[in-house]
């Protein structure tokens, strides 16, 4: 019965990029602290109550040698009832006050001036990220600067949805926050260490909820600045020396691609699908579902349903030649 306690311990040691017991930013640390307190209190209660229950069951079991008499009938005791009402109330008050402190520390602190602001927009089944102060629009891979005590630069996420409800959950950085249409939610993260933090949509949002993955790249301020300046540029358009990519660009711009996708500086200004201006810089496509390499990209354009059935991007029914050309073009969008 007491399997559960060791399981918590095992979890703390388990290797997973999304372990909630491996916090890497302030909100996740606050929650971790609270969770340790709650776990100790509940484990204590389990030992006491479970122990008493086990003792009573063994000590007062019916034995073959027992007399036939019924045991003494005891109907209750107000003193005892009072004690096991008051003690739990005290525990509840203690837990409540501690919990409130963490809620206030996370949800009710004023926003500092020097933040990195990102607008997060949930879509079926991908993430749109907009940096209003930097003029950047990107998708699925969120880049943020690291933030440490000496040089605090927390990232503030302002979140809403273009269609149904989603939830933004990167367990090592913070708890989840729902991304709801017609409503604006906010949260903040401030990882001090550079690295890739994984997560995924945590509110069922339709067929491909499972492959609406989150990737947060925390970068040193220098690396982040370099990434941002590259993102601010318009898309690569000069393909001299690469006739395949140039031809691919023509095919792309003459197909329905441009109705849904934006490639900054071209006629492609669609907003329904992810911005592709700097697609080639990203590590993954299909909201983190597969690696971004020419082979996967080609398969994706041919028919997204082979990788992510239910994806809202239609199969484009292009011939092999056009597929090769478009793939060649997209891989050049650095």
């Amino acid at each position, binding site marked *: *019965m007491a*399997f*559960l306690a060791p*399981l*918590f311990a*095992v*979890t703390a040691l*388990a290797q*997973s*990029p*999304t*372990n*909630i017991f491996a916090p890497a930013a302030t909100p996740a640390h606050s*929650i971790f602290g*609270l*969770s340790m307190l709650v*776990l100790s*209190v*509940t484990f204590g209660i*389990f030992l006491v109550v*479970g122990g008493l*229950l086990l003792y*009573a*069951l063994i000590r*007062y*079991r*019916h034995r073959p040698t*027992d007399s036939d008499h*019924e*045991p003494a*009938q005891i*109907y*209750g*005791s107000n003193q*005892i*009832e009072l004690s096991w009402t008051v003690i*739990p109330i005290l525990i*509840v008050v203690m*837990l409540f006050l*501690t*919990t409130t402190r*963490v*809620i206030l520390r996370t*949800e009710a602190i004023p926003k500092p001036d020097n933040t990195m602001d990102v607008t997060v927009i949930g879509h079926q089944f991908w993430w749109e990220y907009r940096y209003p102060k930097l003029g950047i629009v990107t998708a699925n891979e969120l880049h943020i600067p690291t933030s440490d005590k000496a040089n605090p630069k927390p990232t503030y996420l302002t979140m809403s949805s273009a*269609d*149904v*409800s989603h*939830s933004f*959950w990167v367990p090592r950085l913070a708890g989840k*926050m*729902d991304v709801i249409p*017609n*409503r604006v939610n906010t949260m903040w993260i401030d990882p001090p260490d550079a690295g890739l933090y994984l997560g*995924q949509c*945590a*509110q*069922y949002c339709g067929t491909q909820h*499972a492959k609406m993955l989150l990737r947060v790249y925390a970068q040193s301020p220098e690396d982040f600045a370099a990434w941002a300046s590259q993102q601010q540029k318009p898309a690569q358009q000069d393909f001299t020396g690469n006739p395949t990519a140039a031809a691919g660009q023509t095919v792309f711009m003459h197909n329905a691609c441009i109705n849904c996708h934006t490639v900054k500086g071209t006629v492609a200004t669609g907003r329904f699908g992810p911005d592709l201006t700097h697609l080639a810089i990203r590590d993954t496509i299909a909201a983190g579902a597969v690696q971004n390499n020419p082979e996967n990209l080609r398969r994706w354009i041919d028919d997204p349903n082979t990788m992510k*059935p*239910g994806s809202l991007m239609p199969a484009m029914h292009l011939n092999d030649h056009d597929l090769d050309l478009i793939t060649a073009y997209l891989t050049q969008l650095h």
Partner: protein
Amino acid sequence: MATPVLEAIDQTQAPPQGPPRPNVIYTWLTTVDHKKIGLMYIAYALVFLLVGGVEAILMRIQLAVPNNHFISPQVFNQLFTMHGTTMVFFVGMPILFGFGNYLVPLMIGARDMAFPRLNAFSFWVSAFAGLLLYFSYFGASGLYAAGSAPDVGWFAYAPLTAKVFSPGHSTDYWTLAVFLSGVGSIGTALNIVTTILCMRCKGMKMSRMPLLPWLYLVMASLVFVAVSPLTAAQIMLTLDRYIGSHFFDTQAGGSAVLWMHFFWIFGHPEVYVLVLPAFAFVNEIVPVFSRKAMFGYPAMVAASVSIGFISLSVWAHHMFTVGLGAAGNTFFVFATMVISVPTGIKIFNWLATIWGGKVIFATPMMFCVGFLFQFLIAGLTGIMLSAAPFDWQLGNSYFVVAHFHYVLVGSILFAIFGAFYYWYPKVTGKMMSETLGKWHFWLFLIGFHLTFDFMHVPGLLGMPRRIYTYEAGRGWGGWNLIVGIGAIFQVAGLLFFVYNLVRSYYRGKEAGHDPWDAWTLEWAVPSPPPVYNFAIEPTVNSRRPLWDLKHPEDPDSDYE
């Protein structure tokens, strides 16, 4: 002191063996007898339990290993929607209404429910609702969705249910089924409340009523308050889908959060609607098999009633991640934590009832012992989830799934199994096999713990619920495999249960009136009870009329 119950026993005759019996099917279809309706509720729920169980197993096969292609995402999404909807509306509610229907009149010394025809109506409406839900597999084909079951999740969050995101008719089948099930539930709840308030036998003051009817009174009252908003919300959703209203239509200024409030003001009290009857079974079984009166009867009643009231103010703990703000979250943290106080009182009183008794480990008691430990753990993981920031991590993860299955399976289903073994002799006149019962208990216990203990772990490792597959690198694979293996043991246990149910009916030992040497009125009538239950209305002087009868030298009535 006079023991008028004796007269009831003496004069109650076995059902008359009349001339040619009417057609069996006709009898059951047209019956208004609370016992027959109760049994139909239970049989109907067991069929759906089988269906919901198969759905669960298909999902576990799909999730057993990473990147599995056993079933498609569309089918998986239908499976978890149908599994949740089936288990809550077409297994949990009907099976508990079934036991309530059967037991409440017998335990309060009444001949039937207050409104027998309403009772039959409610059952048949609920039964129709279940069939309607499953007919979606054939009938939901509209222009877009060809023969598809609902796939919006059992809490069907707006705006995923809007026409634009859920074309075709699968969501309509879900909406109508839940609506009709709500109508049936409200009818039965009305019946239970009226029966308990108006039809108790002579001498049975509220303060002498057994705890089972008390808990059913609280449960049925909660159904009024909780199921009505859900039923109303189904109408609003249908209006949104068909005549262009904008309650939940976010693209026209409607509110997704409004649906969440409607759903969870139903959804959380619903947990107590399901768990209070489970408490009720344990309240009857634990004292009898500890050979002691219930410890702290008034405290148990007070705790149950306060659980009923407090449960109406905790719903938004399902919405800690919605962004309600610090003030809202804090309120619901407090309300949710407070409910652990009356719940704790119940556990302590069960403990005190066992303390100093002579505990007999027959199968009904074994299941109640399982219940006590598992409900304790479910309560403690509930406290973890009630701390809102912890819930920001745990909410919508597999940890939550494990937590509420600890409540629904580890607590409620275990108590229901205990109730089956305890009251089966009363219903059929035959004892269930203890040997098969022990096999059922141990296999199911092992399976339960393999599945639901280990299911907590992937949640702590960041695995959200309702995903049809996951990557290998997340460290979730092994845990999900163990969870799936546990299901095999549970199925094996269930096979013993079903075999026991059938075999005991034909080969079981004769049970007689009162095989457990119990104390409440249902054990005063023959097994199975005659159609009219009691030949004359019994009179009671205490909470345990049969104890008074068996121990005239030391009756309860001297102490109450």
